């Protein structure tokens, strides 16, 4: 699972849908059975591609996810970039490229801060199927 995906998903337990705590899911507590494993996977770099993703990103949630996965380098506020090809933006866009697209969560778990439900990631695929008693 690419790190960017953490910005698109939330707890799927129905009662959590209206809670602000259902997003983002948290990587801060990992299960010893499936220890967190990250990997780097090369993706072709395109400054425009990152530039076009930026408006979609919930920045505060991304900061949380990145910190929990060990990256505290992001600016506190979402950068406002006008020209993706300007030299002064290159480092930031490259860093975001590495973080969002090339960082893979191979395995681990994500926790809902509202209900505590744990979603496991195995072979890079997060599982959002709920156990029977939580399905409404």
């Amino acid at each position, binding site marked *: *699972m*690419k790190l*960017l*995906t953490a910005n*698109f*998903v*939330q707890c*799927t337990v129905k009662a959590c849908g209206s809670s602000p705590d259902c*997003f983002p899911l948290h990587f801060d507590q990992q299960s010893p059975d499936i220890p967190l494993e990250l990997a780097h996977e090369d*993706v*072709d770099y*395109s400054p*425009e*591609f990152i530039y*076009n*993703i*930026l*408006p*979609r990103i919930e920045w505060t949630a991304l900061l949380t996810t990145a910190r929990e996965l060990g990256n505290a380098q992001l600016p506190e506020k979402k950068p406002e970039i006008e020209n993706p090809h300007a030299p002064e933006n290159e480092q930031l866009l490259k860093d975001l490229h590495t973080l969002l*697209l090339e960082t893979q969560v191979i395995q681990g778990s994500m926790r809902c801060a509202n209900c505590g439900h744990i*979603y496991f990631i195995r*072979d*890079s*695929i*997060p*599982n*959002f*199927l*709920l156990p*029977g008693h939580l399905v409404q």
Partner: protein
Amino acid sequence: MFPTPSTTKLDRERVYEPAEDSFLFLDLLQEELPFLQTRFVTANSPAPLVVELGLGSGIVTTFFHKNILPDALFIGTDINPYACHISKETSKENGNTRYFDVLRTNLWDGLRPGLVDILLFNPPYVPDVVLPSIENAVKTDDWLDFALLGGPDGMQVTSVVLDRLAEILNPVRGVAYILFCRRNRPFEVAKSMRNRGWVVDMVDERKAGWEVLSVWKFTKS
């Protein structure tokens, strides 16, 4: 005519093999290229998020990132664990894309609401008395029926998607493409969706053996 992606890694015992319905979907996406480009490839518009429900072999999403909107973001979902893995392989085998992830889930459970710009769904549309159950699939490790069977009128799963469409689609530019067979009564479905404020168009239909398949487009404007 764009080439059909290859799916050499596919295990046909475990994941639905691309068939007439899949190919119809590919042809129609091709016809929709001008519409999709006008709607989504404009200056200063954020990258569109394409979500395919029950993506199976991954052939449709792969075709989309190869030929239709290469710079979009892609998420696929499937309840079948084998489909989750093989669809990523299919994407890689055909050149990969910058952003594609697969969630193992029912429909779009787990995705935040309102994010989807383009929803693709080739549903389990075949009428059958029973609907497959997860409990049973877990026991037998046989997930194929989820790709096929849609309850008595073949609409059980599609109805859920249509009822909740407004929740998942981007309210301004969202568009959904959904496949029907004639026994699903698509013209009646279209009428009832129009009554609920949707703009509904049949993109195309085609005879496939004794079935007549059609793909329909749903937007709010």
